[in-house]
């Protein structure tokens, strides 16, 4: 029997608010343990939560950015569980009335076809404390760090629309881009600001049944999410084939063993409304105000790049999926660079070079202004492409103006006919065999000759002019 996976994702995103969700403590989980705490986020008896407006705004923007429908009424419930990372025994979470419903992200599936991954709802909840396990001599001890307790989270719960690891990974990449564009979170799985749980079940391909799911946690990169899903799919398929029953439980991904290991029986009770936090009521005016604060989302931006700058869908997607790249591209256009040139040089030269140096595009010494000057010199034939690549490397290491580098280091393109004629003559006299090849119609030989002239010029010759002059000479010789 052939199986297919049915996958839904639950993604916790930590909002980058200055304060925690229900108190004024700084939202900086990475500080010295237990410095960012107060009676409210230590959950002392008698403390009352005070819901932060900033959290509501950042969470709402995130929902709108994912195309979700903000609900006019949402509320917090007490989600009961007992564990030392949650000493008050319940987490404030929106179990019954979430902040938003619906929404989704368009991705490209493994066959290159567009596919919409739907979001079921997005709700807010407070983060719990962090447990640190250590040894005190030979005695294992567990320490609790409350810096993270009460940090603002949203949980994005998808529909079970995913069928393959690829789809989950594409979704997460796009989600990360969109949330970063909105500015509500850094969404980094590596540093824990985005945490992904996957609910996975299997069924015979072609059926529509929903079988018992297994929850997989503890993946700390998008790659791991893909690996864990792939592993869990084959594990469950094999189990079902062997006649075993899948039971509802939680498993942890072990990146060393590259396997999921059982953790605990999954237990979730219904939640009770918490009257300590007022019901959140959003007016349509407020929602529209939030919508007007929304930056242009990647999909919209890609459409615009295609329509206005004549880029292909693929190019537009590449540029729009990273806010920094899109911003850089637009800055180049603003400096009068042709869209295709800007796109090509960004994708093939600048971004790889920035990555090689471990830099970020936005803070790279190669600012759009400097890079634009370089590209202008290229398009005006003052330098050739070889030289432009060389000058780009210099731009990283020195703060000199591109023109100065070109002049000082002799990168200026040689277009002078007399100089080039003499170089061509030298090459032609040295390569009689190639001339014969050209005459017998071998196109490659022409390229070889141009390359030789270029080499003779120290890489500075204008290739277009070489070709013209060379063609003329060969005609004259025949």
């Amino acid at each position: 029997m052939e199986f297919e996976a049915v996958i839904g994702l639950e993604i916790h995103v930590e909002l980058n608010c200055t304060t925690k969700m229900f108190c004024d403590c700084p939202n900086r989980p990475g500080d010295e343990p237990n410095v960012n705490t107060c009676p409210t986020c230590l959950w002392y008896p008698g403390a009352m939560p005070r819901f932060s407006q900033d959290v509501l705004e950042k969470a709402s923007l995130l929902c709108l950015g994912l195309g979700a429908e903000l609900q006019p009424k949402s509320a917090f419930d007490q989600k009961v569980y007992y564990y030392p990372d949650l000493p008050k025994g319940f987490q404030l979470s929106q179990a019954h009335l979430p902040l938003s419903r619906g929404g989704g992200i368009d991705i490209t599936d493994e066959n290159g076809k567009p596919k919409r991954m739907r979001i079921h709802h997005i709700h807010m909840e407070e983060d719990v404390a962090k447990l640190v396990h250590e040894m005190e001599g030979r005695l294992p001890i567990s320490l609790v760090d409350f810096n993270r307790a009460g940090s603002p989270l949203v949980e994005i719960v998808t529909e079970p629309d995913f069928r393959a690891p690829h789809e989950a990974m594409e979704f997460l990449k796009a989600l990360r881009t969109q949330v970063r564009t909105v500015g509500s979170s850094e969404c980094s799985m590596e540093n824990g600001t985005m945490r992904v749980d996957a609910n996975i079940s299997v069924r015979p391909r072609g059926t529509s049944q929903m079988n018992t799911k297994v929850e997989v946690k503890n993946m700390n990169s998008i790659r791991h999410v893909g690996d864990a899903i792939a592993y869990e799919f084959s594990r469950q398929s094999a189990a079902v084939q062997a006649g075993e029953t899948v039971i509802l439980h939680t498993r942890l991904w072990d990146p060393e063993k590259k396997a999921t290991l059982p953790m605990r029986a999954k237990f979730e009770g219904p939640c009770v409304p918490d009257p300590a936090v007022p019901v959140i009521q959003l007016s349509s005016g407020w929602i529209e105000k939030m919508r007007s604060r929304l930056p242009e989302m990647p999909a919209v931006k890609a459409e615009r790049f295609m329509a206005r700058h004549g880029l292909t869908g693929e190019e537009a997607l590449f540029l729009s999926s990273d806010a920094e790249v899109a911003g850089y591209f637009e800055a180049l256009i603003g400096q009068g660079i042709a869209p295709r040139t800007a796109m090509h040089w960004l994708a093939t030269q600048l971004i790889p070079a920035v990555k090689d140096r471990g830099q970020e595009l936005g803070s790279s010494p190669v600012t759009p202004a400097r890079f634009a000057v370089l590209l202008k010199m290229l398009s005006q034939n003052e330098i050739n492409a070889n030289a432009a690549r060389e000058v780009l490397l210099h731009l990283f290491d020195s703060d000199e103006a591109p023109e100065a580098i070109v002049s000082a280091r002799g990168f200026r393109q040689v277009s002078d006919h007399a100089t080039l004629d003499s170089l061509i003559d030298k090459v032609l006299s040295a390569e009689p065999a190639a001339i014969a090849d050209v005459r017998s119609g071998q196109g490659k030989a022409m390229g070889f000759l141009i390359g030789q002239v270029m080499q003779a010029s120290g890489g500075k010759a204008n290739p277009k002019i070489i070709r013209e002059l060379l063609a003329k000479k060969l005609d004259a010789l025949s």
Partner: protein
Amino acid sequence: MDSIFLYRNPATAHTESGHLQGLKIAIQPNISVAGWPTEAGSNALVNFKALEDATVVQRLRQAGAYVCGSTRMSEFGFGLQGSSAGDALRQRAADAELVIDLMGESRIAASRAAVCGFKPTYGLVSRFGLVGLIPSMECCGVLAVSPKNIRDILKAMAGPDELDFSLPDEKVPDFSPQTIDPRNTTIGIITEALSALPAGQEKVFRASMDELKKAGFALREMSLPDFSLFSLVHRIVGSVEASSSAGRYDSVRYGQRAAGAKNWNDMYLLSRGAAFGPLLKSYLFQGSFFQFERYKAFQDACRIRAHLLADMQRLTSQADFLAFPAVDCAPSDAPASLSDTYTQFATTVFANVTGQPALYLPPAPGLARTGFQLAGPRLSDARLLALGEHLLNMRQGGK
């Protein structure tokens, strides 16, 4: 005296001036005072000292009152088992007491001490710093000899608090003195509220209504057929809220950790198990049963609560006030079971379900009558207390 007080304020007097100057107020140890033991009658919090003052304490002190100590209380204020509420007043060790009212504790304690007891409108008084159990039902009640004292105390305590966002944005009643004109005032009596009374008690209550009649008030019989559901709704919703929100009283941080546990899950279970008393435990068990096994019943109870609230709103729009009996229906001196406890508060629990204000008035001294409760619509607190003052003045005016 130590049978009354758990803790006495080491400072012997208070120096700020205000309209409560000279008033000595006892609180319960489920109301936070920075540095005071705040154990809320439970072993689970036996080592907990509050870090901050509750808003009510801070406001009373600002108004000049002296908070003289905290009195012994039932576990988390649920019922009156082990509580000394009212004793400090009776023995003149305090001029007023704050008693958190979860199901009628302030009013029944007042009836035992033969003083006035008041439960304000839910949401009128900040809950910041109150160690709660049933968040949607409980609020800070006041016991005092006269409704005027209660009015003065409410004037200090009531109103918006930036530390308690749950307070609705409503107009706070004006607690200045006001007059009540009996000729323009109707007081309703809900027939079904009397049917549950122990034998003979209905007659006694009717007799006590003579006082209102003689004072010139118009009495009006009214009907709320589902009155008996108030107890049931409170019992289901209250226990579920308690079992959920009492999670924070884990006995691990401020109580005593049980020894001999194999792992931390065990340690949590054993510590909580050892900390709570039998009455609270059975309440929490009941609550988790409804939450995890009969959630639908909890949802039904919430829906019925909304209906009861609408019914009560209808009645309070047809009369200025409502009169209710206030009978301590405890089947024994020390009700220990959950059912006994709910029987004890059968006449008071309605106001916790609806959130409306209710005032217990003791009987006039020397008369073989019982006291009774007066209730009004949401935020009628100031008028309700004015009515109480009016009735007490009538008494002092000699019949």
